[in-house]
């Protein structure tokens, strides 16, 4: 009898990691995310990631930065199993995500809140529907869905826009819909890929603050961004991807010298 045949239990290795439900004592001590010597080759001659080692503790807030094409998005994609690692392994709450069966992947992703760099929102759906889908996937009752979507939209500054078609929104508004969808499920880990690229500085700070508030409730946040003014304003751990490797730039605001060039060199 294979692992897949254990039914619901076998297919849901991560069901107990929803943010509000961390009763199991052994799990709470483990780091939520461990990358061990991760390689990813898109072209054989030129790996995008070559030996990434990174440990993220439960409840951390981590900035991920690096030049364009460095592999920030690739790193996040490996975590949500859009791609699989070519070498090394990634442990999410102690489990190797490379060894998940096809049927288990949805249950991994339900523990994640992802803001995609290209938003991945459905233009011909309303704002409400785009956010609500994340909760509908969890089979949440409609009344609860309405309440939580409204709350999430308010947090990103889009309250009252729920009925608008997403196609008719401005770039920044669309990006905030993507953010709302990522936070509405109260996931254990948020993977935010450039979530402020289309926002003005005020809103960018607002969204960053929003993620920090969520982080304060125990959610782990990986925040990939180019925006050095954001990074400089906050005292979070910062990892840079450069030449396919991860460089720990600082653990506190004081140890970081500033611009990216001083880090990568």
């Amino acid at each position: 009898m294979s692992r897949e045949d254990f039914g619901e239990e076998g297919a849901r290795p991560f069901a107990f990691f929803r943010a509000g439900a961390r009763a199991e004592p052994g799990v709470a001590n483990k780091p939520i995310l461990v990358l061990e010597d991760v390689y990813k080759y898109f072209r054989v001659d030129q790996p995008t990631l070559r030996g990434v080692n990174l440990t993220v503790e439960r409840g951390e807030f981590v900035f991920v930065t690096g030049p364009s094409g460095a592999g920030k998005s690739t790193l996040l994609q490996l975590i949500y199993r859009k791609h699989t690692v070519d070498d090394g392994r990634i442990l999410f709450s102690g489990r190797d995500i490379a060894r998940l069966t096809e049927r288990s992947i949805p249950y991994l992703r339900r523990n994640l809140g992802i803001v995609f760099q290209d938003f991945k929102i459905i233009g011909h759906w309303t704002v409400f529907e785009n956010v609500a889908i994340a909760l509908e996937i969890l089979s949440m009752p409609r009344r609860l869905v309405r309440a939580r979507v409204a709350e999430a939209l308010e947090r990103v500054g889009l309250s009252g826009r729920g009925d608008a078609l997403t196609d008719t929104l401005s770039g920044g508004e669309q990006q905030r819909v993507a953010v709302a969808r990522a936070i509405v499920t109260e996931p254990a880990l948020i993977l935010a890929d450039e979530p402020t690229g289309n926002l003005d500085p005020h809103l960018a700070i607002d969204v960053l603050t929003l993620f920090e508030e969520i982080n304060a409730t125990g959610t782990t946040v990986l925040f990939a961004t180019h925006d050095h003014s954001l990074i400089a304003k906050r005292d979070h751990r910062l990892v840079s991807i450069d030449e396919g490797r991860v460089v720990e730039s600082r653990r506190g605001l004081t140890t970081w010298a500033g611009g990216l060039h001083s880090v990568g060199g």
Partner: protein
Amino acid sequence: MDLKAAVTRARRGLREERGLYLVAVSSLAVAFLCLAGVLLATQNLSTMAARWGQSGRVSVYLAGDASPDDVTKLEGLLRGLPDVARVEHVTSAQARADFLEHADVGAALGQLPPEAFPASLEVTLAPSATAQRVDAIAGRVKSFAAVTDVETYRGWFDQLDTLVSAGRVAAIVLAALVALCVLAVIGNTIRLAVARRRQEIEVMKLCGATDGFVRGPLVLEGTFQGFVAAVIAILVLMVGFLALKDPINATVAALIGVRVAFLSSWMVVAVIVGGAVIGAAGSALSVRRYLDV
């Protein structure tokens, strides 16, 4: 899979893309109409063929001097055979009258005496009668003293048989062609409908939806579209049938002696259920290639 949620989302799809639904349902309806039309035609043709096939008969000519007793005995014997449906005694006088009435060969023959027309037993065979059985009957009957000759119309029946079976082959070839065409329409229509959802499928999968969650509403939509299309096809076919029924009955059918009939109710149910099943299966198959996200 939560059926109620799937229904809700399927209805949302209906509301959003009414135009696409119309295209899909109308295409499917045309396809089913073709299929049901061919079914209807095949069914009626095979009724006619069966009817033709049933008109097997044998004429047993009686000697002029056959005693009524012998004839009655022979008649009883024939009636007792399993392949015989009906036996009718035609006297010389009746035969002459029949001949003159039908043969249309001018007045000269009217002068023929009744003796020129032998009396006969006209045997109508049951539909189950095969050529071998008929030959066996003819052989047995011929040995009776009262019988001068037995006519089995074998040549005519052989020709008719070929005609009917050629018609059957043609109908099968045609039906297969139409079925192929129908499947192509259905496949393409559903693939089109699902391809439009490609992006939604990707997003849902990336948000942690199971394959079942994604497939659910699409299969429901496919089922619904197939069902509605099949119902429309049946209704259109029924209207067409009612419009054409009388002229057809008045001409072709009257010649052959059969009235055209609509699809039997179980056939109607089969078409409708088949439509729903094809819609569901088509959607489930089409969605598969987009699930790998």
